[in-house]
């Protein structure tokens, strides 16, 4: 299996003693873990464990009250999502956050927003630099489109696409940014077996071919155990497990959490 065959790089992103709460409600309590270069890290846990909140902290949508996040050596306190994006962190969402009014192609192109620089004036004239830029990036996006096998729906507004395809397009948009760290929030939620297999394949390929580091949230244990190099387990906003799949699988606390033993 690819995952085990691959050697892990050093720490890319370090989460240290993160605590987050809305009003009185504690969403995350004193969480720490690492994400290493080239690995696939899975965050699992029962509903409301704080998984999504964790991702939201990493890409700057939420601002934890305590703790620090260090990405590639630089520690940040409060940062805006678009800053995270410009650092090379891309993500997809639990409930799809595509631009419904735009075509598949435009959605993916919009993923390269940060890499395109032609301004209002140039774009207004279009001919010349703006067009050249468009073409160049279009070429790259077409690669992604081929890779995700969605050539057929290029020009269709994503609003009209079935759920599974939308998930794919969203992945495509994230990839278009050529991220160094890719956050996937339940990429296979609500998919049938076949779709899931496709999605797994894409994720692994991305990880292999582009060497992208991936941190994903997933409920399907089977999938998680298959594709991830490491697993972090959250429960009630606390970290209760961290390690290779097999190890975590036998962690008593984790089992309790999933079987719902009283705390």
């Amino acid at each position, binding site marked *: 299996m690819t995952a085990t065959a691959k050697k892990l790089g050093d720490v890319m992103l370090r989460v240290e003693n993160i605590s987050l709460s*809305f009003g009185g409600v504690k969403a995350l309590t004193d969480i720490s873990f690492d994400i290493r270069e080239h690995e696939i890290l899975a965050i699992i846990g029962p509903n409301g464990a704080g998984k*999504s909140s964790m991702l*939201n902290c990493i890409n700057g*949508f939420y601002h934890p009250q305590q703790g620090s996040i260090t990405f590639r050596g630089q520690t940040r306190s409060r940062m805006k999502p678009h800053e995270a994006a410009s650092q090379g962190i891309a993500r997809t*969402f*639990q409930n799809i*956050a595509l631009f419904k009014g735009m075509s598949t192609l435009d959605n993916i192109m919009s993923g390269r927003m940060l890499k395109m620089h032609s301004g209002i004036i140039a774009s207004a004239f279009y001919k010349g630099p703006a067009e050249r830029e468009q073409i160049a990036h279009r070429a790259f996006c077409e690669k992604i489109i081929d890779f995700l096998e969605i050539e057929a729906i290029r020009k269709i507004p994503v609003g009209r696409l079935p759920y599974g395809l939308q998930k794919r397009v969203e992945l495509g948009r994230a990839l278009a940014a050529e991220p160094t760290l890719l956050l996937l929030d339940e990429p296979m939620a609500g998919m049938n077996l076949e779709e899931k297999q496709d999605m797994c394949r894409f994720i692994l390929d991305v990880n292999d071919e582009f060497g992208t580091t991936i941190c994903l949230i997933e409920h399907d244990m089977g999938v998680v155990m298959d594709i991830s190099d490491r697993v972090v387990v959250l429960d009630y906003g606390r970290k209760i497990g961290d390690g290779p799949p097999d190890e975590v699988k036998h962690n008593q606390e984790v089992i309790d959490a999933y079987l719902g033993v009283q705390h």
Partner: protein
Amino acid sequence: MAFFLEVLIGGLMAGVMYSLVALGFVLIFKASGVFNFAQGAMVLFAALFFVGFIELGLSVWLALPLTVLVMVALAWAVERLVLRHLVNQEGIILFMATIGVSYFLDGFGQSIWGSNVRQLDIGLPTDPIFLMDGDILIQAFDLWAALVAGSLLVALVLFQRTSVGRALRAVADDHQAAQSVGIPLNTIWIIVWSIAGLVALVAGVMWGSKLGVQPAIVSLALKALPVLILGGFTSIPGAIIGGLIIGAGEKLAEIYIGPFFGGGIENWFAYVLALGFLLIRPQGLFGERIIERV
């Protein structure tokens, strides 16, 4: 000093009238999440019918219930012809739809009753009252207006306590939930719009007997918008207090700041006031804060 008080009081009184119009907005927004731009047109509409009926020789006590019926019918029509077909649209679409409704009512009312100024006298005194041996002047009419607005407010608050009122709030919180517990959304909407219609009628009668019933009244609705921003779209006390602040604020501004700009700043001051406020507190005085999630 006396003059300042005089202006302040005058402003507060004017504010009461704004609140009356703003109330209608809030009621509908609370219950159906619709920003009803047509409220102003409804004010004119109600006033036109009321005064029209009276001109036809009916007594006030006959004209009043008749106009109420008209407003209920209007509410029904709006639900039937407009809202029902736009249920799951985003708010802004509904907002634009109500702009359409507003235009329609404007034209409809005038094509029935014409565009002449109509004098509406419901026997409220208009002569000035002097306090502090003539230093401060209060307009008797405004006192009455305040009184009416006050009692209307009380009535609304009481209404909130009734079962229907609770139903309304249920809808406000969550449409699906409300429906799932078996509250027919459409009925609720008709009720709300009827109530808004009544508020419009009251506002219309007050404004009408103050300015004479005429098309220009519609433009007063615009004055209620800054009130809403200030008070928050969902809060009845907000509408009242917002109205008072705007009323007093703009009158004082007109008199104490206006002269430096050559006067006539009333038209926009309310907006700028509300806007400045908005930047500090986007959800308004009493509006709920929104937490966004992904």
